[in-house]
């Protein structure tokens, strides 16, 4: 395999970056749509079924003219899927209101930070170890070169993700401060303390996979956790997985830990004063973070891009078609989607914790549990060898 030149590296990196951004902009609206529908069906309703039931605006015009032509405006109704577009259009086209008392620069900075940090965290996630595909020979400039399965499968991948995830807190805290309003301030304070608190058990619970694989590189960890053991990582690391996933809910501000935006207490929390696309960036950031949390869980605990659990993969490999036996990005995405479903499912089932209880869960239960889990993993490792 030829060593790529600097230009070629840059071009490949750019292609990868664009792919990551496209992936994000595909999966986030789909998650939002899925949340509407799944939550709706959990709650005995239908979720979104149409856009623009009204007679005003652009879509209303389309609707009315189609009815006039004697046709059901299918495009506007089809199971609410047009909502995907409607959401984005709404956010972009809504009036931007910036309170006069708000800090102009920070008010703008906070949502951008939130969004950029979430996207950057996604970068270290590797969809499939090794090469994703090789560019055909006829492609100019990069023909014959491989595109790796991870955007930036760096050797400190996990550290990068954790570090960048911490940057995301700034977005929320700064948003609360910049708004210069009480509800956002209270929301952002809560959120700052909450996210910071849950970062400790989150890191500790992820240390066990690190310890078992002896690496911080995402693809290496995923490979070891899926194939290095006779079973998936979730079997020896059940406790670790539960601690990790709980922290994941708290880190992404989802129910039952949606304190910062607990609407019945603080109106809308840290984004009370935000509107339009600035609000949209917080929204996007939350869903990207959910995808990142799910990706880590899928990678380390649920066998990453491998198909079958519990050592079955090795047993049945000879009988499977070749492509089913190989790690495949599709399996990884499916696992992410399943975990995203769990996020929505939990939201439809559980009430919200109170603030002091949230802090107690983090400091009194999850940290000791995560430490115990880590020590157990180390002990097994120590005694096994």
């Amino acid at each position: 395999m030829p060593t790529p030149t600097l230009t070629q590296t840059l071009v490949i990196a750019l292609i990868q970056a664009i792919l990551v951004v496209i992936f994000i902009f595909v999966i986030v609206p789909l998650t939002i749509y899925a949340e509407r529908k799944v939550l709706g069906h959990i709650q005995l309703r239908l979720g979104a079924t149409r856009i623009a039931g009204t007679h005003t605006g652009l879509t209303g015009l389309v609707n009315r003219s189609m009815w006039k032509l004697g046709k059901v405006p299918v495009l506007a109704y089809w199971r609410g899927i047009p909502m995907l577009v409607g959401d984005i259009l709404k956010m972009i086209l809504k009036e931007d209101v910036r309170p006069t008392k708000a800090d102009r620069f920070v008010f703008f900075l906070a949502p951008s930070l939130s969004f950029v940090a979430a996207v950057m965290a996604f970068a270290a996630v590797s969809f499939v170890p090794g090469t994703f595909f090789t560019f055909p020979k006829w492609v100019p400039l990069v023909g014959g070169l491989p595109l790796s399965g991870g955007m930036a499968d760096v050797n400190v991948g996990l550290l990068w993700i954790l570090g960048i995830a911490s940057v995301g807190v700034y977005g929320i805290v700064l948003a609360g401060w910049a708004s210069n309003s009480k509800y956002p301030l209270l929301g952002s304070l809560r959120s700052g303390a909450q996210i910071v608190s849950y970062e400790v058990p989150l890191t500790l619970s992820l240390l066990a996979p690190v310890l078992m694989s002896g690496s911080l590189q995402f693809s290496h960890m995923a490979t070891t956790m899926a194939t290095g053991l006779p079973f998936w990582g979730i079997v020896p690391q059940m406790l670790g997985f539960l601690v990790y996933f709980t922290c994941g809910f708290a880190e992404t501000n989802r129910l039952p830990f949606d304190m910062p935006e607990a609407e019945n207490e603080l109106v809308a929390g840290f984004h009370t004063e935000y509107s339009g696309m600035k609000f949209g960036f917080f929204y996007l950031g939350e869903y990207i973070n959910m995808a990142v949390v799910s990706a880590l869980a899928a990678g380390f605990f649920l066998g990453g891009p491998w198909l079958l659990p519990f050592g079955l993969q090795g047993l049945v490999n000879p009988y499977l078609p070749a492509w089913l036996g190989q790690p495949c990005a599709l399996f990884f995405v499916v696992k992410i989607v399943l975990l995203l479903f769990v996020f929505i499912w939990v939201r439809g089932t559980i009430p919200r914790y109170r603030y002091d209880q949230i802090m107690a869960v983090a400091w009194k239960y999850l940290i000791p549990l995560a430490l115990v889990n880590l020590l157990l993993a180390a002990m097994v490792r120590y005694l096994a060898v």
Partner: protein
Amino acid sequence: MSSPATPFIPLLILLLLALAVGIGILWVSGWLLPRFLKPSNPQQAKLTPYECGVPLFQGSARQRYGVKFYLVAMLFILFDVEAAFLLPWAVQFKSNLATFWVMIAFVATLLVGYVYVWGKGALEWER
């Protein structure tokens, strides 16, 4: 073209791209579109901070707030440093099993502090 920094080039590119996308969208929706499509109708009442529908009565929201939040921040730093210390240990653990006892000792020391903090009531969310 192969150096330890090579894998990080995509990160840099992505950072630039994310910034471009982020700022681009905000620019389009915040500056370009208002000129054509978006409503832009600022009014005095609309631009005041949300106060549940009554006139604003405390001038600025930037007041002093509970010292408890600082305590959480300090505890976080302590425990995050611990986690940061555990990370390289976890990576190297495979090749150097003897560090197990060292780390047990370290974590035990930390646990003493943890128990002390708990006993002092710093983990309780009280006034």
